[in-house]
């Protein structure tokens, strides 16, 4: 009997499983993503402050009043950051080949004698989802570009919530 994939249980995951899935998805996007500018794994270590500064110009295309402090507030808020991550993960899940690769990486991560992932890599995941146009590995190539626009709009909406509906 084959074991259930993490996507079979998604989104009903425990918080530590969710953080693990977010981290593994971000790693997979760094490894496979093709963007206009090269994507470095350093983004996985970036602070929410740094990521907010990076992300704000993109979000200002849909809402010119967005500030980097508001974006950081979204990333710092556990609930809003989780919503943002879910939106990206939903997009990944819609692409079966990519979802399968993420699930395999997640399974491999589970084999490690590691501790709990305590950081929700929401900022990195959102930036990667917005920047990456296509993902490619081996003979697989998957179009990811439309996902970026969806995610950017969604995060801009979350910023509005932080800003009190402005």
């Amino acid at each position: 009997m084959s074991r259930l994939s993490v996507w079979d249980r998604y989104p009903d995951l425990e918080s530590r499983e969710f953080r693990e899935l977010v981290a593994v998805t971000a790693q997979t996007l760094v490894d496979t993503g093709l963007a206009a500018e090269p994507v470095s794994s350093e983004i996985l270590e970036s602070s929410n402050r740094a990521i907010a500064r990076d992300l704000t110009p993109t979000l200002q295309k849909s809402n010119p009043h967005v500030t980097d402090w508001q974006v950081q507030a979204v990333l710092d808020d556990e609930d809003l950051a989780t919503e943002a991550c879910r939106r990206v993960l939903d997009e990944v899940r819609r692409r079966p080949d990519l979802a399968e690769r993420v699930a395999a990486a997640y399974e491999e991560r589970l084999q490690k004698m590691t501790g709990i992932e305590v950081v929700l890599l929401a900022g990195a995941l959102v930036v990667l989802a917005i920047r990456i146009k296509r993902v490619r590995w081996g003979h697989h190539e998957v179009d990811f570009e439309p996902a970026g626009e969806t995610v950017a709009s969604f995060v801009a909406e979350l910023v509005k919530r932080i800003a009190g509906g402005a």
Partner: protein
Amino acid sequence: MLVLHEDGVLQRFPLLACEDCVPRVERLLTVLQAPTTTTPTTQALRVEEFSHGWGRGLLPPWDAIADKDVLIIVPHDLLHGVPLHLVKPTATDAFLATSHGISYCSSGTLFRRCVQRNAARRGRPLEPRRCATLGVDVLTDKDDDYRGLADAFGRHFVAPLRLETRTELKDHLDPRVPTAVDVFCVVCHGYPDGTEPRQSGLLLKDSSGVTSFRGVRVHGDQYLQFRDWPFGTVPAAASTAAIVPSEREMFYAASLTVGELMVGARTMAELVALFGCATGTGEVGAGDDYRSLAYQWLKLGAASVLANLWEADLPVLSRLADRFAAIWAPGGVAKALALRTATRQLLDEDRDLASRPALWGSLVLLGDWA
């Protein structure tokens, strides 16, 4: 670099220049010890560059070591924790870990002490080695897997003793009561604390409602009894939540820190196997003292320690540890050579693993090689 041969001949060889070495070592250790800050592809690339490339600059010429069976590596400063056993010293496909028995030790003095107290070197009696095992996962619901690895290791010894708690383990480290255990196998989470290495520790469990006391030597042979509190608090992420629900009433997560082992603990074990994430990771202190959980076990009396330099892959570690125990437990083979043979067998059986040294290379032998 100094190479001291068994006949006392000392040779000097230049190492990779510092300006080349330092940034590369830092990058390598970062991808190995903090894997969530990078990607598996980047990690594999960095290890590959090290194994086939610049890592060779940290070893003496092949001719100087080719005829040796065992290399005892005493690293200095930033080379502590660098997995030199993953270097491929020649153009062949063999890692140092498969061509030589390897043992690391943080200093020559500590190595001499390990050698002097190693029962295997004193012509140990023919009675079989006694092994105590403890496996517990208080973080990620893999208690059965951790326990399974500890049990599998213990099965290679006669009548292994199964420990459940931190208190039971500490009972065997009481300095006043010589323990009959020759081998400890502990499978659990380790947590390195780079800021305060004494707070690095093992995450174990302990029994609820049980109060134990420890004798602490105050003068000569005089001991005072103190209540046995852990020296450190359990990291916030480790709550009782992950302890099997049926056991939550009986156990809670408890740590065993380096600081605790520094006070009132002693062992004469031939080998302590610390299977867990980063049990061999540490920080360089004053006088080039590499302070880690694994080395603390050597300092409190163990002759040798098996530990992981970064997070271990459980299935691969299980296979490697099982092979090692099968070769070493019956006696007659030195630990370093047993680990070399176990590694060879593992890589011969699974060729894919040879291209992924980060999966199997975290396990190292520290202290005496015999």
